């Protein structure tokens, strides 16, 4: 025990075959007769997080930050490897699950239910959520009349009051004005003191320094560095500066080189597909036979 989140040898492979036919084939044959065209988004990620720590996930665009945050929020599953989370994790998704026709109040109750809170817990927290969102009288209005800022304030305050053990914040602080985002930061600091773990996804080094005591630098699908935030962020900022000083062509060349390297290494580490055991075929065969038999029976076509 001891850890809050443990990520072991996690890789994520996306399938780039975007033609509909291939997707359908893959879905119906359960992966038989189908060649994937893989894209290795994350390769062999390992790290461990203790409770009460907050981790800033930094990296360039397309380096796999969002993939990692989806995996940590358990929205998708890793292709190989394991993610162990001690408790409940929640990815802050501001507008997900809000219903435009319902009032703010009903939306609060509905989304809290979706997060697995009981009716009693919702009653206890309801006032806190309304206060935090600063919506006042508007809470009784259907949210289609809200401005976009109001919607995200509502979404954020619901998400932060659902009391997760692990909170994943993916570029969510761009909502609202400065005072509101400061309020969010204060709230998150409060979370840290309660021993909760926060992942903070960003490409701004400054925000990470302000918020996090550790940093995880994802570089083209791999962990480039993990540890105390100060030195890593400094190194990251230097790298960005260097990257920005390159000419457009050099930048593109660099990206191309890194991505092809990422794909090559990904291929090497991926395990070959395990052959399926024959026992997996028993129940589909039995059920199909039963079905065919019942057709014969129904049509009075039994041979006996």
């Amino acid at each position, binding site marked *: 025990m001891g850890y809050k989140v443990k990520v072991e040898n996690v890789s994520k492979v*996306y*399938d780039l075959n975007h033609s*509909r036919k291939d*997707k*359908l084939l893959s*879905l*119906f044959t*359960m*992966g038989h007769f189908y060649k994937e065209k893989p894209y290795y988004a994350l390769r062999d990620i390992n790290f461990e997080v203790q409770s009460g720590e907050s981790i800033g996930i930094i990296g360039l665009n397309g380096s796999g930050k969002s993939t990692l945050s*989806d995996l940590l*929020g*358990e*929205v*998708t*599953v890793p292709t190989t490897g394991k993610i162990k989370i001690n408790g409940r*994790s*929640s*990815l802050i*998704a501001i*507008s*997900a*699950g809000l*219903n435009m*026709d*319902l009032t703010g109040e*009903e939306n609060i*109750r*509905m989304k809290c*239910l*979706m*997060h*697995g809170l009981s*009716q009693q817990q919702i009653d206890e927290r309801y006032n806190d959520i309304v206060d935090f969102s600063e919506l006042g009288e508007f809470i009784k209005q*259907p949210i289609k009349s809200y401005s976009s800022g109001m919607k995200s304030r509502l979404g954020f305050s619901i998400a932060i009051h659902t009391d997760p053990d692990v909170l994943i914040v993916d570029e969510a602080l761009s909502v609202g004005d400065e005072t509101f985002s400061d309020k969010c930061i204060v709230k998150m600091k409060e979370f840290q003191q309660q021993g909760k773990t926060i992942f903070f996804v960003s490409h701004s080094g400054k925000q990470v320094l302000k918020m996090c005591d550790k940093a995880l630098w994802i570089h083209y699908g791999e962990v480039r560095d993990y540890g105390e935030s100060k030195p890593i962020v400094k190194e990251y900022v230097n790298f960005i500066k260097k990257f920005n000083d390159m000419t457009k062509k050099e930048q593109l060349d660099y990206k191309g080189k890194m991505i092809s390297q990422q794909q090559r290494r990904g291929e090497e580490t991926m395990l070959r597909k395990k052959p399926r055991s024959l026992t997996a075929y028993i*129940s*589909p065969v039995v*059920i*199909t036979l*039963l*079905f065919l*038999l*019942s*057709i014969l*029976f*129904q*049509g009075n076509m039994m041979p006996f």
Partner: protein
Amino acid sequence: MKKILDIFKEQWQYRYLIWQLSIYQIKSQYANHYLGVFWNILQPAMQVLIYYVVFGLGLRGDRGDVGDLPFIVHLISGIFPWLFISQGINSASNAIQAQLNLVTKMKFPSSTLLSMSLVNGIINVCLTTGILFIISIFNGYSEPLHYLGFIYFIFASYMLIFGIALIMSSLIILVRDMKNVLQNVIRMFFFMTPIFWSLNEANEILQILSSFNPFAYLVMNYRAAMVLDDIAIYGDISDHLYFWAFTIFVLFVGVHIHYRFRNKLVDYL
């Protein structure tokens, strides 16, 4: 097989959530309506009226009763279960697609969305069946114990609709055209199922086709429970065997597609 049990365990585990959320869904559906939930009765009533005029007064003419039943009773005992089945399949098949931004951004058991959309249908069919129940009691069409067959009808339809919706809900996300295909196939089955016509009076070919139509089995079970006095549960051994073998087959395919799909939903978009 284990996966089939798993998915129903999941429905049971989240029953409270399913119930609460489907109430919010109904609320939002009728948010800007004057008549609100009253539409749940008004809509089937209008359909019955139209079909009665077209099929009863028009097509059937003065042939009148079906067996011992007035045609209008025969008609509503077919339309009420049919509306439940067809609306159930349509709404449950679209359930995941309608909540796509929820499922791709939150950890949420997406199979419960199917049950959620069925709760609305079950409430409706209970309301409409209440009306038929009063008519039936008043005229003494069915035996008191036979009404329990209604529970069997709900159970059997839920299983079949859930299985079909498991397959279709994934397919519709991949290929949007399936939504239109599904609607048209369902409309076809409306005519292929003994709803406004009677199985006993039908041509032999139609009878054989109906024996392979699982919806006919369901509708006839509803009738047997609500308005027919000779049997409580419709069908002989081979009918039951066929229906359940079909349902389990559909569920099996659906569950595998669903589990394969839901872990990779984001990848498939």
